[in-house]
């Protein structure tokens, strides 16, 4: 069913050479970079411009007003996805219609705002741009409204015409402006647009308003009073179908036929022959095609012609008959030499109930995915894509939603909306989200956390890990150790946590103080991520105990750091040095057993150090300091051991 039509793809001109040169390119998230180059190593030579051109795909998402369209339709979209499948179809239909109307009122609001902006701007280029957007939105709303009447609301014979009349009235609103202009003039009945207004009202079936206008003329022409009276009575008697009333469609048809005959009689007996305008109106009422076509300028479009023709010839038209009238009206209305425009074809396809063609043609003619994606989604929810025998069904919906959402992802804030669209694409939504979200620039910690939450909520563990890793690496490069540590804990990256813990300890050795105390003090179970991190946490705990004068606990912890092999060997000397002040307290803190253990640690360390042999290139001075330290430690340990033995051997009195 897909006819393949070969056409030239759209060409975008780049200010670069075109002969004998190549264009290099690089894909970006929302654009392509293009530059002049030559790929042949041996070949044409010549100076190349060294300009790089940023080619963007779609500028719509950068419009601040259209952004509202995206934002608000996102809410409607999400609401639509949560409509329960098990609702009775009658309830669902009214919900779908109301959703459709919500979408349309968002479009309307957006149009109005664009309109205001176009008027108030001083920049003619911007005004043109806004004006173009308004015209596109108008077309979108026109199509959407028709789709709503035909596909979603599924108006039946009788009601169908009423709804089509509303549709035409809404989109041919210039009558009202002309009318108010006429009415505000000094003598409305003599205004040059007077008859245009009257006829326009009649063409739209706004007969009450037409009568009001005619009264003004009648008072001016007392001689023709009877003629005006007759017209007034014809207009007032025209029957309209009332949905939900007691009258059946057949009864209405009979009544309408009677009225039609009456109008026809008036025409036959030349009741209005002396007044060309009234004669015209009467011919319209009887549905005379030539007369209608003579008012092309007032009708404006073939679909207005169609609705007017139905109103006065076939008021009980059935949906299945529409396509026949639509086709013939279009042919009659358009000049033989003019080719139908995309919009004509789209509307015609809608009248033919060819949903697929509507979506396809809209995709081609309109400049954004917003419309096709949302409309298709809604039609899919109405189960219309299946019932119309499109075997690819939800794929089309998903294809369009993915395209739309991918476009949003190139924007620095709209990408957040896209997440929900991806969530509702069962086949590829998840993998698209994975690919797109990891490309969101993590400009700030705040933004990184935002992206992270989205990934965490969806159990996207690889993306979570990667984001944390990127942030940890960035923090480390900027020497923000605390931040680096907390990000790598979040990433559960043991190797990196070890590396950062090492940095913390190095910093401590160099400066004698810890940075980011808050973080280290509150590691909790996260401490267990890596041995080095555990040590860092415990070592800091030792400092805390020491600071709080809880010396015995501090001493016990210090010793256990070495005996339980939590502390890296390279750090033992620092730990033993930390033990020195405890050993030199007046009070005995390390017991005899503990002192023994400390001595073992020291001996183990010194023997392993001497084993390293002459290969290590330490200076004499360093060697001296180290020797002195060991000597001091030995002395302090021996003295403490003596004191401890004495104390432990003394029976307390």
């Amino acid at each position: 069913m897909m006819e393949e039509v070969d056409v030239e793809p759209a060409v975008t001109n780049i200010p670069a050479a075109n002969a004998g040169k190549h264009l290099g390119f690089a894909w970006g998230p929302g654009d392509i970079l293009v530059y002049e180059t030559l790929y042949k190593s041996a070949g044409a030579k010549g100076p190349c411009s060294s300009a790089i051109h940023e080619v963007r795909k779609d500028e719509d998402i950068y419009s601040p007003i259209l952004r509202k369209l995206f934002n608000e339709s996102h809410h409607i979209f999400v609401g639509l996805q949560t409509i329960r499948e098990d609702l009775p179809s009658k309830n669902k239909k009214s919900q779908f219609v109301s959703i459709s109307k919500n979408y349309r009122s968002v479009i309307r609001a957006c149009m109005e705002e664009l309109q205001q902006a176009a008027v108030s701007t001083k920049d003619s280029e911007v005004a043109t741009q806004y004006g173009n957007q308004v015209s596109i939105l108008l077309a979108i709303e026109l199509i959407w409204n028709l789709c709503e009447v035909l596909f979603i609301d599924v108006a039946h014979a009788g009601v169908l015409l009423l709804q089509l009349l509303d549709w035409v009235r809404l989109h041919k609103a210039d009558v009202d402006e002309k009318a108010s202009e006429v009415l505000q003039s000094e003598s409305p009945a003599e205004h040059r647009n007077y008859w245009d207004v009257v006829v326009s009202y009649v063409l739209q079936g706004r007969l009450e308003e037409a009568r009001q206008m005619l009264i003004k003329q009648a008072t001016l022409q007392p001689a023709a009073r009877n003629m005006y009276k007759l017209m007034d009575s014809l207009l007032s008697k025209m029957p309209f179908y009332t949905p939900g009333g007691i009258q059946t469609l057949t009864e209405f048809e009979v009544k309408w036929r009677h009225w039609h005959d009456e109008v026809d009689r008036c025409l036959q007996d030349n009741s209005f022959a002396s007044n060309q305008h009234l004669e015209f109106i009467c011919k319209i009422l009887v549905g005379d095609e030539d007369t209608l076509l003579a008012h092309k300028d007032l009708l404006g479009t073939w679909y207005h012609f169609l609705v007017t023709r139905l109103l006065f010839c076939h008021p009980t038209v059935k949906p299945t008959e529409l396509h026949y009238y639509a086709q013939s009206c279009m042919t009659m209305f358009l000049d033989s030499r003019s080719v139908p425009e995309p919009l004509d074809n789209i509307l015609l396809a809608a009248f033919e109930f060819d949903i697929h063609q509507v979506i396809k043609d809209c995709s081609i003619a309109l400049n954004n995915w917003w419309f096709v994606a949302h409309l298709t989604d809604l039609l899919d929810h109405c189960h219309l894509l299946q019932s119309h025998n499109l075997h690819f069904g939800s794929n089309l919906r998903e294809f369009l939603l993915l395209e739309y959402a991918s476009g949003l992802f190139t924007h620095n804030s709209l990408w957040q909306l896209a997440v929900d669209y991806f969530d509702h694409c069962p086949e590829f939504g998840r993998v698209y989200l994975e690919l797109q979200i990891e490309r969101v620039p993590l400009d700030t910690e705040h933004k990184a956390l935002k992206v992270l939450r989205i990934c965490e909520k969806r159990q996207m563990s690889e993306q979570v890990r990667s984001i944390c890793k990127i942030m940890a690496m960035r923090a480390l490069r900027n020497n923000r150790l605390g931040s680096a540590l907390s990000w790598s804990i979040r990433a559960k990256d043991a190797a990196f946590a070890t590396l950062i813990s090492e940095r913390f300890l190095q910093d401590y050795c160099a400066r004698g103080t810890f940075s980011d105390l808050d973080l280290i003090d509150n590691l909790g179970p996260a401490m267990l991520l890596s041995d080095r991190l555990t040590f860092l946490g415990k070592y800091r705990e030792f400092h805390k105990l020491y600071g709080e004068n809880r010396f015995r606990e501090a001493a016990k912890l210090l010793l256990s750091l070495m005996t339980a092999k939590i502390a890296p060997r390279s750090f033992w000397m620092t730990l033993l040095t930390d033990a020195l002040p405890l050993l030199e307290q007046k009070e005995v803190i390390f017991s005899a057993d503990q002192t023994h253990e400390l001595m073992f640690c020291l001996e183990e360390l010194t023997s392993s150090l001497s084993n390293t042999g002459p290969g290590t290139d330490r200076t004499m001075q360093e060697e001296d300091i180290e020797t002195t330290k060991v000597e001091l430690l030995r002395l302090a340990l021996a003295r403490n051991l003596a004191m401890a033995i004495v104390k432990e051997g003394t029976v307390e009195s």
Partner: protein
Amino acid sequence: MFVARSIAADHKDLIHDVSYDFHGRRMATCSSDQSVKVWDKTENGEWHCTASWKTHSGSVWRVTWAHPEFGQVLASCSFDRTAAVWEEIVGESNDKQRGLSHWIKRTTLVDSRTSVTDVKFAPKHMGLMLTTCSADGVVRIYEAPDVMNLSQWSLQHEISCKLSCSCISWNPSSSRAHPPMFAVGSDDNNVSCGGKVQIYEYNENTRKYSKAETLMTVTDAVHDIAFAPNLGRSFHVLAIATKDVRIFKLVPMRKESTSTGPTMFEVQIVAQFDNHNSQVWRVSWNITSTLLASSGDDGCVRLWKANYMDNWKCTGILKGDGSPLTGLSGQPTAMSTMMGSSVQTSQNAINGMSAGRYFFPPLEPPTVGTRYGHLLPPSSLIEHCEAEPVQPQPLALPHRLSSKTLLSLPEAEGQ
């Protein structure tokens, strides 16, 4: 599509490669002038050159970014037979204020005896690994075992492809189901040498890469090659730039449980386009692999897209208009107003470039001045402006619009 801005790259010779970083906030350029430049994007989308330095003693063919998990790391390869790894160091604060960054060379990889034609980092889940290929027909895989010390790289694998290599591409699929895999292309012109694209796969048992497939149907010189991101599919998609653009599907065939050899593939051609008329030099996928771009001898960049029926079509062409910007210098911002004119833009919008082109080919592209009146706002929205000059655009839309509002939507009220 439209040119949003132009940047004066200010290279003294041909630009050979431009590469975006992972997040699209930085780019690197390299040139025959032997230098690499790094550019940073500001909040309002302008590009500023923050570093420019001489990297090699020959033309620099390619420049590429490591994944940001490994920091800010670049690799370049050159005609001078080397590849090099560069790392940005966080400099003095006044450098930052002046918008400058410092890049230092961490290593030079000198194993190749001929020009190094391509350099690529392996997928990040494999660790920090760098692959080069060279005109002598060797693919080399290096690894930095300690990501905090980029001056140490060890040559892990040396794979002889027998033919002069022009390009490599890693399969980005990080799924456990697929062992690491890359494709290498050869620009050897001799058709009798057989297939010019070889696929290599890592074997856990031998801890070596072995050839899994040769695309026998590609016998002409291959200039570029690109695996598509895997969308959770069971097969791999590979684009090739040769005398035309080709897209292949590699479907792994079921392995026998006893087999320890490389995966066998069923190779299917998905699309083949000769629109570039002659040689195609580059192919590259967008993030979600919904679009493929190619550059060829016709001087154009062409964009290819599949619709939901998997029919591939050219959906857009970027083409030099014959007016290269000369004397482009100084502030890149000065250029932005020149090109991005909204006249061009609106034309594209009307011509249905953006949405439709990627979906279906248009039935008939509306031309300038057609009866597009239906898409005009109703006349009620337009104030008459006889005095206004005619706008040179397809939509004869008067640009002074009245402030009168549109009809409200009665049926949408009260919901």
